[in-house]
């Protein structure tokens, strides 16, 4: 399975990954429309971690044994059979936040967009752009601080 590889030393903290992730997950998939009219209804699923001059973009690490799946009470969090990616079925998710409680990378977040009682109340995470050849964050990184590569499964840990 292909994974997103982070190259911290190349990241300049421009946050274009966040911008394009948001656009990719918007309804219009149009950068102007997404930011003008959909800003309150869609969230980026990648986040730039920053401390002084150092930064890197972080999204779901696609763990080999995902603790989010283990903790999910609704069955929403699962491994997609076709792409192999760990994804959240938003139609099943009830927003209990168990996955948020256990993700060590902090790469799942509450999606409460839409506002009020009728708004969303679900977990939001990277879906590797649903089987796209190259995820939007990788494709739009100007500095190759993110790459999409076939990485062998982790060796057993200590």
């Amino acid at each position, binding site marked *: 399975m292909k*994974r*997103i*590889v*982070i*190259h*911290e030393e190349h990241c300049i903290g421009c946050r274009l990954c966040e911008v394009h992730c948001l656009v990719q997950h918007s309804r219009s998939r149009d950068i102007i429309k997404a930011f003008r009219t959909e800003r309150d209804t869609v969230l980026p699923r990648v986040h730039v*971690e*920053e*401390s002084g001059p*150092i*930064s*890197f973009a*972080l999204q779901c*690490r*696609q*763990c*080999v*044994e995902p*603790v989010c799946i*283990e*903790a999910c*009470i*609704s*069955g929403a969090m699962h491994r997609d059979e076709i792409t192999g990616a760990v994804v959240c079925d938003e139609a*099943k998710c*009830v927003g*209990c*936040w*168990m*996955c*948020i*409680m*256990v*993700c*060590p*990378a*902090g790469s*799942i*977040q*509450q999606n409460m967009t839409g506002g009020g009682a009728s708004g969303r109340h679900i977990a939001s995470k990277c879906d590797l752009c649903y089987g796209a050849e190259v995820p939007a964050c990788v494709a739009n990184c100007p500095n190759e601080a993110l790459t999409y590569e076939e*990485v*062998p*499964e*982790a*060796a*057993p*840990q200590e």
Partner: protein
Amino acid sequence: MENTRSVQTPALDQTPRIVIVGNSATAVGAVEALRKVDQSAEVTVISAEPHMIYSRPMLSHYLAGEIERPRLAYRGADFYARHNVRPVLDDAVVRIDPQAHSVTTASGQTFGWDKLLIATGGSPIIPPLPGLDVEGVYAFTRLDDALAILEYARKREARHAVVIGGGMIGIKATDALLKRGLRISMVELAPAILARSLDEVASRMMSNLLVDAGVEVLLENTVTEVRSSEGRLTGVVLRDGRQIACDLLVFGIGVRPNAGLAREAGLKVNQGIVVDHAMRTSHEGIYAAGDVAEAYDLVVDMNRIVAIWPNAYRQGATAGAHMVGVERVDPGGVAMNTVEVCGVPAISVGNGNAPEEGHQVLAECDERAHRYKRMVLRDGRLVGVILVGDINRAGVYTGLIRNRIDVSGCEDALLNERISLLSLPDQYRKHVVTGAGIEV
């Protein structure tokens, strides 16, 4: 696979037979893990309940009316078929015979096994009160309970419920019934709600939310008598003599492990069934996992029951893999839970409510905004955290707790609104970022 190592499976002349007693989180964890590596074992899942695999924690969302019944399904209807499992539903195991390697069910069926997993979970704690056997009194742990409560509330147009228990289950029942528009009185024996997982401040915040929503929160009190008329509930009498008229009474105290079968079979049982790091009981070939098992808790550094869904699933997976010859070691669990009251979430992980004495406590509170953060450190390591309101970074803390990371010097970062992985020790950050075998 993480934490795994293949070992030689002894050559068996016959297909190994695996019997799993229970049909919930633990059973699913076991089945999914064993089928990852083994397609040949003959697997039977036996359950006292008549239903397909459903999610117990989702029951509160169902009771609240947030989801329809189909969404209670934790796995698809084809789960058994796809995993080549024979389900035996609506038939309780009444006897385990460790010598004959068999289990017997209430209907008289006997199943032989080479490996047995006891995943029987727990039963609701119902104190022996006079007058309980009337219409309107329910436990809240099974699908049948939720169905019965809903049917009764609809039929009788219930208006006022008394919920016994201010722990996780009691609070979830309260929040759910509140969403159904009922008036609620919640009775808790302890001086605070959610006392097992929250500290005084967080508990008060959650309690205030309930009170603001109109819930009557009665602390240091309990129900001593149940009143009824013509076989139907009319009210309760409290320890302090007060009487409350009500038409629904829900027990949300908690669960007691279903360890009776194991005890009768001669297995070692304390509170729950005693298991090792591979979920093996004191008897060769018999495993136990989930709410019924006393497994390793890595924060308190001892074996105990931690009755939560993720532990059940993971322990089940450990047992499942082990039963088909994969030597997998369970890293241990951590007590943790999430609860949401009137839209404000709270998360507690590990010893978040440990006293200041003997610990370093970092806290930040904005009660008006319903935001609170409490971190407990021991010897430079995070051993617990409580978050109210802003919970989006909870997992980062949980990771630090699970991996016993030395965070001395990072105290400021811990309290930061959005804790950055970059402020954590380098080695650990790399571990998290490369956790799945990715090089930075």
